[in-house]
């Protein structure tokens, strides 16, 4: 972070006027709702919104003893780890090979960044179309070539595989760009010195490039987890709707289901508060821990 300025403008009212628009929007649409979530998480409303009672931490206690909620935590963990690990591994592989390519590099890069522009909801629609058990091209090919019957509407492993694939597909562009930028910032002299000492490309990758990329890798790990937690709502809503049963209901989807479809405002608010804590923990982890520990 660059240093603060040494010289300033003098004015008693101008800075306030400049800050006002952002402060107003942030207070009305950020702090007020976030505060409301905190208050509501300690209250219970009846179904018609007629009476409100303070219930202390009861909403949290109910949540943490609710097996459906704990199940959703587990689903989210499995989902986000799969998305992060697969997405990072695949795009690292692509970036390593892309780094070797001199001619045509721009063309490859241009094609690979297109999924970034595709909305998660649209990505979900594309993938569900390919894997639809009755009309999907891929499910047809699977069933007629190796006799594998794909059905994400009934089989929860298939459903999970489908949302992971769609989520990874959408995120590959982002990871790829960061890895490529990381690879290109490694000094060529290091690679050349290793080559002169007789290290082959495979060895050079594991002993030089991979360790030097570790800050990027850890950064992407956090970003991908956050992505899988929050930005994949649309993918799930467009493909599995959380099914079969509740097997692909991730936490954000559950807030939406309980709060907007189920009318359980206190419970949904408590879930929101827990989610806020998760994001804050991830962000703090990223800034405090990773920025300091992973440095070569």
């Amino acid at each position: 972070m660059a240093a603060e300025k040494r010289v300033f403008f003098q004015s008693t009212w101008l800075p306030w006027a400049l800050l006002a628009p952002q402060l107003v929007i942030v207070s009305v649409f950020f702090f007020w709702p976030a505060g409301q979530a905190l208050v509501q998480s300690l209250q219970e409303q009846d179904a018609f919104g007629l009476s409100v009672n303070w219930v202390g931490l009861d909403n949290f206690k109910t949540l943490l003893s609710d097996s459906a909620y704990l199940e959703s935590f587990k689903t989210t963990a499995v989902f986000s780890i799969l998305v992060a690990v697969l997405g990072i591994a695949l795009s690292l592989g692509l970036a390593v090979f892309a780094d070797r390519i001199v001619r045509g590099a721009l063309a490859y890069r241009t094609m690979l960044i297109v999924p970034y522009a595709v909305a998660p909801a649209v990505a979900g629609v594309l993938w569900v179309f390919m894997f639809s058990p009755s009309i999907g091209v891929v499910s047809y090919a699977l069933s007629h070539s190796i006799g594998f019957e794909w059905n994400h509407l009934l089989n929860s492993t298939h459903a999970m595989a489908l949302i992971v694939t769609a989520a990874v597909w959408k995120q590959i562009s982002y990871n790829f760009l960061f890895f490529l930028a990381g690879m290109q910032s490694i000094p060529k002299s290091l690679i050349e010195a290793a080559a002169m000492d007789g290290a082959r490309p495979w060895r050079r990758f594991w002993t030089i490039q991979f360790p030097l990329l570790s800050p990027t890798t850890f950064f992407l790990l956090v970003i991908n987890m956050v992505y899988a937690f929050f930005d994949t709502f649309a993918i799930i809503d467009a493909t599995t709707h959380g099914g079969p049963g509740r097997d692909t209901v991730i936490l954000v989807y559950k807030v939406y289901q309980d709060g907007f479809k189920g009318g359980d405002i206190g419970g949904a608010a408590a879930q929101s508060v827990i989610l806020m804590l998760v994001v804050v923990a991830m962000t703090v982890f990223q800034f405090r821990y990773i920025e300091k520990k992973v440095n070569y």
Partner: protein
Amino acid sequence: MVERRPWLDLLAHAVMVLGLLIVAFPLYLAFVASTHTAQDILQAPMPLLPGAHLWDNYAAALTGQGGGAGSNAPVARMMWISLVTALVITFGKITISLLSAFALVYFQFPFRSLFFWAIFITLMLPVEVRIGPTYQVVSDLGMLNSYAGLTVPLIASATATFLFRQFFLTVPDELLEAARMDGAGPMRFFKDILLPLSTTSIAALFVIQFIYGWNQYLWPLLATTSEDMYPVVVGIKRMIAGGDSGNEWNIVMATAILAMLPPAVVVVFMQRWFIKGLVDTEK
């Protein structure tokens, strides 16, 4: 290149081509499906080469003439809503953030660091987390089904402020001193010196925010209840109803292609700024 290894170069191209084929296949298939009749697609396996109904399908989608089981609202209207929403979010965020970053960097005033943190804490919590209460606020203010309701709550985050602040801090102090010596006031300095210097950051943020705005799903899903205020990303989901056979997949896929065209064009043609902005903002 460090050494000549023709086989490795060949392998690199092979891997990239394979990766591209996998990445591009869903997009290709969507395009193919958007050029056939609904019946052709329902007879598995659907054709893998483009058909002859391109114009019919796109015209039907844009004017809302499809006969599928789900919503049949005209896509032209949805594209318009998406465009307005994305542009308002983009320009709103950039304007507001430029001003507040300018205040935070170039002025000293009471509670400055308090405001600094108040703005930056919004970086942490995406709208998905506080969705319920935000909905209540917007509905209490009577902003459901309006452009204001679709855009303003999404402007309430500090990504752009953070980037502009970082950039302003790297601008040499001498520029400010020189401007002051020549008698320029703060707003003159902002307009004639700071803004021209910031064009690259503004271009990068334009790409990132435009895609962010265009691709929003959960918030518009809640903030709009009437069909003529759906952005295209929400609209396409509403076109799909229940079973596979009731849907006109050719129209759905035409809509999908239309929905990804504007952000894809922006990313591809502005990729230099986009990549720079992405790698700078996040690090």
